[in-house]
């Protein structure tokens, strides 16, 4: 038993943390939030150069990592800095695209999106209505995909559709679709994607098991990202409790706040353990993997709400301002529960998985 990071992962963590501390401060990030693209092209290529994207994939796919603990190491740091660049889309779509395209993404030269969820699918992975019909050049897709993150910037959008009796994955070019794009509350951009006989190339047949596996990886990454964001919320709140003076004393000297902060710290350890457990079981069999992912996502959803709300409350008015770091971080934490299944969804799934 050993809970230390390997030397390689420790180096990855250190270099990513240092890079983001130097280059991704609140003002920079808030400028990115307001930008038309929703991300910064220079930051993106710098992240790629640091090896962040390569760390998400195994060697046989041109990366140098790809294990659960590689993924959570990267995403925890991204979360700590509130990074809005679409790394999650690379993790999601990357496993389904041809190697040459993945190489280009790992190098930072291009972008991906992953279009699976639909207006009525909510968090269910098998509830897909978009249909694929074969034609002379490949396939044509018809249907609607909802909240497709990073759709506008993507070179290809990995899109799911019913293909006969099963669900297959297809490669779609964004310019062939009708994209209705909008910014997201937590940063970045997304789109409603309307497919109406849209040309597509089939990437993977009978893809539901792989979509489930990929979503398990993404959900675990999301847990780690939220853990990192919560670390920042805790650090900001701690700093504030120790420096903000009212009634002639630092507010952190008041027991009403001390005990609540202690409870947050206890739940943070729970959250860290949940991420470790999920990462450890990520390459296990399906039942084992999904049970631990649900466990982690459910717990992080709960702890996230506690930490976000309590951090805002303990800060008081300053946390209500958009320019303060906590505002963005709290949004990322709370909204993480709306991707890859929320606490209720995962509690139900945890029970179903026994």
């Amino acid at each position: 038993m050993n809970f230390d990071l390997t030397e390689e992962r420790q180096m990855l963590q250190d270099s990513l943390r240092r890079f983001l501390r130097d280059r991704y401060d609140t003002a920079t990030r808030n400028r990115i939030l307001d930008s038309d693209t929703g991300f910064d092209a220079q930051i993106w290529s710098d992240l790629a150069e640091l090896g962040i994207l390569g760390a998400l994939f195994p060697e046989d796919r041109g990366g140098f990592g790809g294990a659960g603990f590689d993924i959570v190491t990267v995403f925890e740091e991204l979360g700590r800095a509130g990074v809005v660049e679409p790394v999650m889309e690379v993790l999601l779509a990357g496993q389904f695209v041809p190697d040459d395209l993945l190489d280009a993404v790992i190098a930072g030269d291009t972008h991906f999106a992953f279009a699976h969820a639909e207006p009525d699918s909510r968090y269910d992975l098998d509830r897909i209505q978009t249909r694929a019909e074969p034609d002379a050049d490949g396939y044509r897709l018809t249907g609607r995909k909802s909240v497709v993150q990073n759709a506008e910037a993507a070179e290809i959008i990995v899109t799911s559709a019913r293909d006969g009796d099963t669900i297959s994955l297809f490669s779609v070019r964004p310019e062939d679709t009708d994209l209705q794009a909008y910014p997201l509350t937590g940063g970045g951009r997304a789109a409603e994607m309307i497919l109406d006989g849209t040309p597509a190339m089939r990437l993977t047949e009978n893809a539901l098991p792989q979509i489930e596996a990929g979503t398990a990886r993404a959900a675990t990454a999301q847990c780690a990202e939220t853990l990192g964001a919560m670390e920042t919320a805790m650090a900001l709140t701690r700093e504030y409790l120790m420096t903000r003076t009212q009634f002639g004393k630092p507010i952190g000297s008041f027991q009403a706040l001390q005990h609540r902060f202690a409870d947050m710290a206890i739940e943070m350890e729970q959250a860290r353990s949940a991420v470790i457990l999920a990462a450890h079981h990520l390459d296990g069999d399906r039942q084992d993997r999904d049970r631990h992912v649900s466990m982690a996502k459910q717990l992080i959803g709960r702890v996230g709400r506690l930490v976000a709300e309590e951090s805002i409350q303990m800060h008081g008015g300053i946390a209500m301002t958009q320019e303060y770091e906590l505002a963005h971080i709290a949004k990322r934490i709370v909204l993480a529960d709306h991707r890859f299944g929320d606490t209720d969804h995962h509690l139900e799934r945890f029970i179903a998985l026994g």
Partner: protein
Amino acid sequence: MDLSYTPEETAFREEVRTFLKDDLPAHLSDKVRRGQELTKADHEEWHAILNARGWLAQGWPKAHGGADWDAVRRHIFDEEAALAHAPRIVPFGIHMLGPVLMKFGSEAQKSHWLPRILNGDDWWCQGYSEPGAGSDLASLKTRAVRDGDHYVVNGQKTWTTLGQHANMIFCLVRTDPDAKAQEGISFLLIDMDTPGIEVRPIILLDGSAEVNEVWFTDVRVPAENLVGTENEGWTYAKYLLTHERTNIAGVGFSNAGLLAVKRMARQVMAGGRPLIENPHFAARIAQAEIDLMAMATTNLRVVSKAAKGQAPGVESSMLKVKGTIIRQEINDLARRAAGPHALPFASEAVEGANDAIGPEGAAMSTGRYFNNRKLSIYGGSNEVQRQIIAKTLLGAAR
């Protein structure tokens, strides 16, 4: 990052399982499973079995007759013992006094008392809390005045667990009333048969008689029974508390408790189907299980640090709070699962007359629920733990 046990540790777990299967008497595990009070003879029997195997003083060095297990092995034993419904090891001699004597005791004290702890010659109890000194332990008032070769002790201790069985008590006493609260305390070993000592049972809300008041009136204690230096007792007490923290998270108890709740919920019918299929009840069980899975991992993180010789810090307090909250939640679930069968008074129910009432575990669920409200009170209440956590994390804010 590697959460798996080494092959040696896995083999050790098997060894523990085999030992428990072969050597744990059924009449003891039955009692534990059903929540019955264990007698003094029950405890002594189990201690003797463990001692014969060399597994009683698990953390003690071999030189003193211990097993010299690291934190991981102790954790494995705790897990397996709880699942097998083994009696717990009575902690006062083994976990509490033993380490203090080894660290601070004289050679004479070590060679006299340590073997007697292992052999069960003495039953130790702990004289810490007083009516006016609970969470604020350093405010204790029991007075010890030096008189020639003796100390004369006057005062009252309380919440003395299993003191009714004890022939020896280790006590925190005030030897310098003028010093600052923590600086005038000494650590004394007192023979319970000395004239002037009176033990009065306190019946707890579940009807159990596990704690006592101990009164001292002009009790003469040989000065050689002072541990370490006069007025340095607080240091020893704090050292002891860090040892009391082993297994503070109670992971084994919670694992066993959750299994029992699930067993009962499969057996009990509600609305024409097993209770475990009721979505509200299933959600509460799942919630507790999720919290327990995370907490058990936090516990392993602390255990693995401890096995490398790093002292656990604030994590002990975190595990104490979270571990007791989870155990109490599981106790609440058991009581609820029992439904109307939680109503009969337990000590009557488990002693045979009402055995047939309700599913297994129902009769004792209420008593255990009430008895385990103590978990968040003793060993430094959960509020005191939160204070320790806050002080560590927000130290500069005063």
